[in-house]
């Protein structure tokens, strides 16, 4: 009797997980094994994967500030930047033609989720119970120019419509 009761308790605890697992098993979990997988296309994809050449002369030492929201002006300090044209990977896009007056500093503005943030703020004001979530998003910054691509630094983008 006690054994049956303890089984009953454990069934209550684990039953939903088993049902979830069994229902999920109806769908393939590994899409590489599905018939739609095209091996040739996959090989082409891997072959064409773009790895920028690593620069031997360019290096990012620091970024300032290292966190902020949309509109933050970021300064990248380092060495080996092109004086007229650098490509800055921002983690959400690409800014081209960024000049460096001394080859050691680059300045650009973070312009990420600005539209979404504005909309969220408007909606937050109109709805006290808005469930818009604050996010902390790592943006990987790189600089690329004719010498190759630099090392990276992470800018922490803070999306918080209630504090902005």
């Amino acid at each position, binding site marked *: 009797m006690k054994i049956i009761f303890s089984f009953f308790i454990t069934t209550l605890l684990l039953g939903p997980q088993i049902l979830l697992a069994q229902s999920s098993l109806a769908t393939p979990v590994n899409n590489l094994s599905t018939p739609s997988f095209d091996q040739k296309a996959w090989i082409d994809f891997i072959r064409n994967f773009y790895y920028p050449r690593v620069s031997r002369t360019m290096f990012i030492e620091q970024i300032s500030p290292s966190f902020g929201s949309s509109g933050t002006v970021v300064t990248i300090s380092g060495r080996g930047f092109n004086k007229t044209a650098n490509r800055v990977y921002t983690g959400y896009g690409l800014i*081209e033609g960024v000049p460096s007056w001394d080859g050691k500093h680059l300045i650009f503005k973070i312009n990420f989720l600005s539209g979404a943030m504005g909309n969220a703020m408007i909606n937050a004001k109109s709805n006290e119970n808005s*469930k818009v979530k604050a996010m902390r998003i790592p943006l990987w910054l790189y600089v690329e120019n004719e010498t190759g691509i630099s090392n990276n630094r992470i800018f922490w983008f803070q999306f918080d419509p209630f504090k902005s």
Partner: protein
Amino acid sequence: MIFHKKTFLMKFILGILIFSQVAVPLVARAVGTIPFGGIVTGVIPCLCSGNFLIIQKPVAGPAMLMYQPGVSRLYQYGQILVPGTQILGNASVPVPCVELIVIFCVPIYTAPLITMVGTSGIAGAIPNFGGPNGSANPNSSGAPPGPNTPSPTGSTTNNPCSTNQSQSSAGYITANEGWRNNVYVDSRGNPTVGIGHLIRAGESIPSGYLTDTQVRNYFNQDYSRAVNDARGAADRHNVDFDSLSPARQTVLVDMAFNMGTNPNGLTQGQQGLDGFNRMWSGIEAGDWQRAGQEVQGSGYYGPRADRNAQIMATDDQSLINQQINRDPRSASICPI
């Protein structure tokens, strides 16, 4: 009913163990990894769930994925939110994208959560490398020239697949240059696509991507130009191009393809085929050792230059064949 605490606890644990034998493998399989790879075509921020819906043109895996900052592990180059980048990784259990619509949070889609992802650099996002105003050349609206387009210099058009010799040269150049369907930046910082096709001012690839047919068409024109350039350079240095062995012809065409012919490049390393005067002197004199040495003697260096120097010196066709065989696409540049 009276319970003995100790006995009940033991049986409860036993029950968990028995069920875990059944349940854990099922759950593990159900939440197993989903490998994926493709090109990002769209990114939707899900403001209420604090994550991003990533839409990819999949080569493998699902077309929709969820990226959760702080949970999904990013690897080099970390550009998951940039349309046009290639992504490669694993996903797991489905999670919802909950979007703010007017003033309500509404789940709009459920997709597998990315557990780890690496990305390419941003190669395809170079649509503005056209003219000074970024305007596209009306003659190059993304559609490459056909295979029989006359050479701009008015010289003859060379079909890279017309003879065994030209097939070999075309395959060798393809192996040396590599085959890329997407725009990338070459070692000199120039936007390039296909088989080493330099995107010149006024020319644009609007989508940043070429089909295989477009790659071949660009190559046909570039190859034809390189053959004419090599012949022209040989003429200017009193060398009969047609009297050279196929392997040495291939080396000259490869050099012309890679560097052009301009003898007055901006830097020592950028001079073209016409600038290799001592190499031409060696060829004219039939002094192949000297000609081979001089292939590398003008700021042209690296594995490709080493190989070309060796072929020039030894006339060893097997080095060309080895290079072609390393890359199946090189062998297929002239489909039978």
